[in-house]
């Protein structure tokens, strides 16, 4: 069953254009000029219950605008949105009881209060009886390992602890859909991993549908089974992570350390990425040639060490972004 259905969604922003310097400023007051930025252009997709979907794209691609329309923050210019059977534009307050949002860049917690008091405040916002909130806090205390700092004012918490509390605050009313907008921004790798594990656990335990935006490819790779890539306001890819890897991982990287210097040139299917001293780095397109053919070119007796790896997912995603730019 689809919990989110988006059909032909569009949103434009009117932006004032100003020429350089003071003269430009005066001109823009007398005769203002505007540019229409098409932030989102006719996007359509649907998301099923319990799915964890990565909603990604380069900066300014339109992903935050789309999420803000799905949560009722922004009003669309055109198109239809259905989240849990409700229209965010008309039923914003009703919908808010069933969705949760974490904006990595925008803090919702009161910094002088402890996480415990913050959670109680959020309980009041969602009209949850006190006893029920306390029960919920106890439950999350264990799941999100909050014991160590639940009674410490938020301003004294580390960024990782704070983000954990932000997530808990957004879950206190048991939302059916959770929007995570760059939840791991600015976190160190260990804390990131912890947050990911917790999100996974939460999805498993509560069957919460998760829509995640992140510039960190590991977040996407480790959490989501489906990826929607947005660029220039349009969806350029909507596929499973498995398919993405299968279709785009037809290139391999060979790193080789040689005994003697080899003089190689680009060949059909083989691209030399680096050739410095006795170190070589080749990209092999498996659609055109094979790994053994590339190794043969190097002469196996001449190889001291060799490493064959996949093209990093990050590179795949950025090439999709670039394709979208063309």
């Amino acid at each position, binding site marked *: 069953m689809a919990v989110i259905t988006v059909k032909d969604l569009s949103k434009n922003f009117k932006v004032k254009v100003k020429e350089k310097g003071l003269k430009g400023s005066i001109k823009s007051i007398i005769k203002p000029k505007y540019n229409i930025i098409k932030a989102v252009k006719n996007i359509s997709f649907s998301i099923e219950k319990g799915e964890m979907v990565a909603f990604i794209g380069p900066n300014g691609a339109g992903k935050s605008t789309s999420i803000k329309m799905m949560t009722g923050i*922004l*009003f669309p210019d055109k198109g239809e949105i259905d989240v849990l059977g409700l229209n965010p534009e008309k039923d914003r*307050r009703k919908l808010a009881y069933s969705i949760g949002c974490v*904006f990595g*860049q925008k803090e919702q917690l009161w910094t*002088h209060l402890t996480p415990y008091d913050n959670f109680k*405040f959020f309980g*009041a916002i969602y009209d949850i009886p006190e006893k029920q909130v306390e029960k919920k806090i106890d439950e999350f205390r264990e799941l999100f390992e909050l014991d160590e700092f639940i009674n410490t004012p938020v301003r004294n918490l580390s960024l990782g602890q704070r983000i954990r509390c932000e997530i808990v605050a957004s879950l206190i009313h048991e939302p059916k859909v959770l929007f995570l907008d760059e939840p791991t921004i600015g976190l160190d790798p260990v804390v990131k991993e912890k947050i990911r594990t917790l999100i996974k656990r939460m999805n498993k335990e509560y069957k919460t549908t998760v829509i995640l935006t992140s510039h960190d490819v590991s977040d996407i790779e480790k959490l989501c089974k489906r990826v929607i890539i947005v660029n220039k306001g349009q969806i350029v890819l909507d596929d499973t992570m498995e398919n993405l890897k299968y279709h785009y991982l037809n290139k391999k990287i060979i790193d080789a350390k040689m005994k003697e210097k080899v003089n190689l040139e680009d060949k059909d299917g083989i691209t030399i990425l680096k050739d410095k001293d006795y170190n070589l780095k080749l990209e092999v397109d498996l659609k055109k040639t094979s790994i053994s053919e590339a190794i043969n070119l190097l002469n196996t007796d001449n190889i001291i060490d060799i490493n064959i790896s996949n093209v990093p997912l990050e590179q795949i995603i950025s090439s999709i972004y670039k394709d979208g730019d063309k």
Partner: protein
Amino acid sequence: MLTEVKNQIKVNILSTKYALEREMLNKVTFVSNIIFMILNNASFIVQWVILYAIKDNIGGYSFKQVLLLWGLAAMGYGVSRFFFKNAFNLSDMINTGKLDNYLVQPKNVLLAAITSDVEVSALGDILYAYIILLIYGLSLKSFLLFTLFGITAGFILASVSVIFSSLAFWFGRVEVISNTLNSIMTNFATYPEGIFKGIIKILFYTILPLGFASYLPVQIMTNFNIYNLLVVIFIVLLFIGLAFLTFYKGLRKYSSTNLMNARV
């Protein structure tokens, strides 16, 4: 419906309470802000003492009425800035995308936004207002009417600010306009009505409704009239309604931002 209103008020009171607790963290600043505001207000009364030593009647007001006017002005200012501080920062909140957090919560966005902060020095204004009432002459009737008109004035000031600040949805940076109009409302509230004539007087009974925030309440307190009292209440409700209407009309044009911000 009743439960919804009850829950909404509960959240707004909690929000004000937490904001006050935050301000109280720094004891010295908290107390000194209140005391200095009382002293600041008191210093202005001195000029009126001097003026009334020369003349018995200024702009149709006796010294006692000017005292009352000052008391009501301080009370209205205090109530509006303490309980609805962000009504006076609303245009900035609109321009910097700070409404996002309130928009994803199942509560009234405008109320959540404007009650999310308190101005501590405004407590000094409220205390000062009651000191003035003591000097004016305290009775049960004067206390109740003074409190009521302090609250209605606070609602009027906050509503007018919301209306002008909401223009930010259409025109962007309107801080200068809204701040200027708010200052006019605050400054002119301490002068006797009789010194204003013509268009200024019309303004004070229309788009800058000082007449209903200060002048009419002073009249009612010195010469009680139920009809005038009902007019004040009606006008307050009208401005509250207009504030909600303008804000929600503008909210459709809200464009948010991706600026980083924190609730500190």
